[in-house]
């Protein structure tokens, strides 16, 4: 083996000592209901040894509607916490000092607003921005392809992304500005090779955008991170992470001329595969998650979310989230797999799988380059069609029993176990409407802040500081987005079968 851990192209890991030096960050994705409930869940997780927060937002927050907007009907607080103004964000982090935790936010189209809210909370807590650390997902391209929480067309969206990258490089040096995600494309049905290729192709587009703006690649690239899925095919998944690291290192050095090794290191968060969980025999999901988490650790992940067994059915209960966290802790502290960096490196099978995935991903990447880049491949429907073709093939294979899913198409027991699931308070939506009405009354006139934002949106100024100033004055997520929708227009995906 000529490749070494901690050395270019980092196939075997980005650190020479890996988990002997430092364990991965255990980061359970959480957030639901209102700010008060979410604050309670976060404190619970921190009290039980979780080492970082990962914030889930409800769909209205992700798509730029306040909780009292007609478009928010039925969705408030469902898949994450509802955040409309600084008041909500202050409540979420009440009693959680922002210089003591790192927070990852799954937020894309409205990333600059949620980052602004986080920085405004830090200010209020007296924590300087140089001391806060965390991540915004800020990855709009995969939203157009698979996840669906886009608002604006690609060009203004890429501008907002580059604004964050540029702003944080100067003002918030500990912030990871983009987490380029393959997770959702994999959930949507793509293969391991496609996951690598489409993710890196998105990454290339972001780096290209920032370079075209005149930023020096080594000034921002070390703060880019990635987010992968970890599925059940054990060795293929370990190999996937290795292949992705090798490919990215080469791309950054050769295509973008990066000089700093940190720009070439592919750092990533992993979440176990939600789509591998079954509603049937849900206890089996604990076993699936354990295997997937182990593959992520053997693949050298920097942080990890383990799914809870009830997530095929509902939001997880406190009890099942704790079991998922314990799964990571057992791998970390009892299994002994942390003793050696890249312990599977050199295995004939894993090395061959790594080479195969690298080759297949390269083929996709050159096909995308030939189409004129990822933006074109998204707009002409290529990426979308590739993913759903794979999803359909998978479904057919399951129905023909060419693929076995225990408890679903084989080893089906007569009895369906019932799970206790997390419920969202039905009074939440009316309560949120009332709270927002009160807030708008109390905060005073915000028109002058919105006028400043409108002017900046029409110029080429960086919008991040302007948005921070808006949220400081309790301008809401919905109000900012309404204005930007008028300025930038809205994207409408043209997906068909």
């Amino acid at each position, binding site marked *: 083996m000529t490749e070494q851990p901690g050395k270019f192209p980092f196939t075997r890991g980005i650190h020479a000592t890996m988990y002997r030096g430092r364990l991965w960050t255990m980061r359970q994705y959480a957030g639901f209901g209102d700010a008060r409930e979410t604050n309670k869940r976060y404190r619970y997780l921190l009290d039980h040894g979780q080492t970082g927060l990962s914030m889930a937002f409800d769909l209205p927050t992700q798509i730029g509607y306040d909780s009292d907007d007609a478009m928010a009907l039925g969705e408030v607080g469902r898949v994450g916490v509802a955040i409309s103004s600084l008041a909500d964000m202050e409540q979420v982090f009440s009693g959680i000092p922002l210089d003591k935790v790192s927070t990852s936010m799954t937020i894309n189209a409205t990333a600059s607003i949620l980052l602004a809210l986080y920085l405004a909370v830090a200010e209020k807590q007296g924590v300087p921005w140089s001391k806060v650390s965390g991540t915004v997902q800020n990855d709009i391209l995969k939203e157009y392809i698979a996840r*669906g929480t886009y608002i604006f067309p690609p060009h203004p969206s890429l501008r907002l992304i580059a604004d964050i990258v540029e702003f944080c490089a100067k003002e918030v040096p500990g912030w990871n500005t983009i987490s380029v995600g393959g997770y959702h494309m994999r959930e*949507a049905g793509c293969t391991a090779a496609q996951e690598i290729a489409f993710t890196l192709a998105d990454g290339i587009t972001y780096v290209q955008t920032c370079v075209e703006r005149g930023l020096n690649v080594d000034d921002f690239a070390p703060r880019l991170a990635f987010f992968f899925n970890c599925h059940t095919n054990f060795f293929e998944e370990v190999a996937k992470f290795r292949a992705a690291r090798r490919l990215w290192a080469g791309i950054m050095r050769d295509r973008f001329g990066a000089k700093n090794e940190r720009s070439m290191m592919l750092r990533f968060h992993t979440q176990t595969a939600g789509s591998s969980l079954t*509603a049937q025999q849900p206890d089996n999901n604990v076993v699936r998650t354990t295997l997937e988490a182990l593959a992520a650790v053997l693949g050298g992940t920097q942080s990890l979310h383990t799914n809870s067994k009830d997530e095929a*059915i509902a939001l997880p209960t406190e009890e099942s989230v704790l079991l998922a966290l314990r799964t990571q802790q057992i791998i970390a502290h009892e299994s002994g797999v942390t003793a050696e960096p890249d312990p599977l490196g050199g295995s004939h099978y894993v090395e061959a799988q790594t080479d195969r995935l690298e080759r297949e991903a390269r083929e996709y990447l050159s096909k995308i380059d030939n189409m004129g880049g990822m933006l074109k491949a998204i707009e002409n429907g290529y990426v979308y069609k590739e993913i759903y073709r794979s999803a359909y093939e998978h479904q057919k294979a399951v129905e023909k029993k060419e693929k076995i899913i225990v408890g679903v198409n084989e080893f089906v027991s007569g009895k369906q176990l019932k799970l206790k699931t997390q419920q969202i308070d039905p009074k939440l939506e009316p309560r949120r409407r009332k709270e927002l009405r009160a807030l708008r009354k109390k905060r005073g006139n915000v028109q002058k802040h919105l006028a400043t934002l409108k002017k900046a949106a029409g110029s080429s100024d960086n919008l991040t500081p302007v948005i921070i100033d808006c949220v400081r004055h309790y301008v809401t997520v919905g109000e900012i987005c309404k204005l930007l929708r008028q300025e930038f227009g809205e994207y409408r995906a043209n*997906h068909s079968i």
Partner: protein
Amino acid sequence: MKVLIAKAGLDGHERGALVVAMGLRDAGMEVVYTGIRNTPEQIVAAAIQEDVDAIGLSSLSGGHMAQFSRVMELLKKNKFKPLVFAGGIIPDEDVKKLKKLGIREVFGPGSSITSIVEFLKKNV
């Protein structure tokens, strides 16, 4: 048979809806897919315009009670009576409520395309 597969609300999970749409198409049905982010009003308008025999509603974000009941209400108001079925992440207690509203069947995670095809052939 003509079927509308529809995604209501802000939910962007379309794997299930698309795989079902592709499966029904391959089973010989004519399928119209709405794409994501439709209001109940848009779904009902599309169903009437396309004059479909059945509507499949998909939701994985938990907004199904509010959105699906509105679809049923609008269908009634417009005196349009296709067979309505649903899929996605829908808790058992809500399945009962949805059936009371006139939604004929709910296909949860792990359902096969074959079972959906059989159901539609038998009931439409």
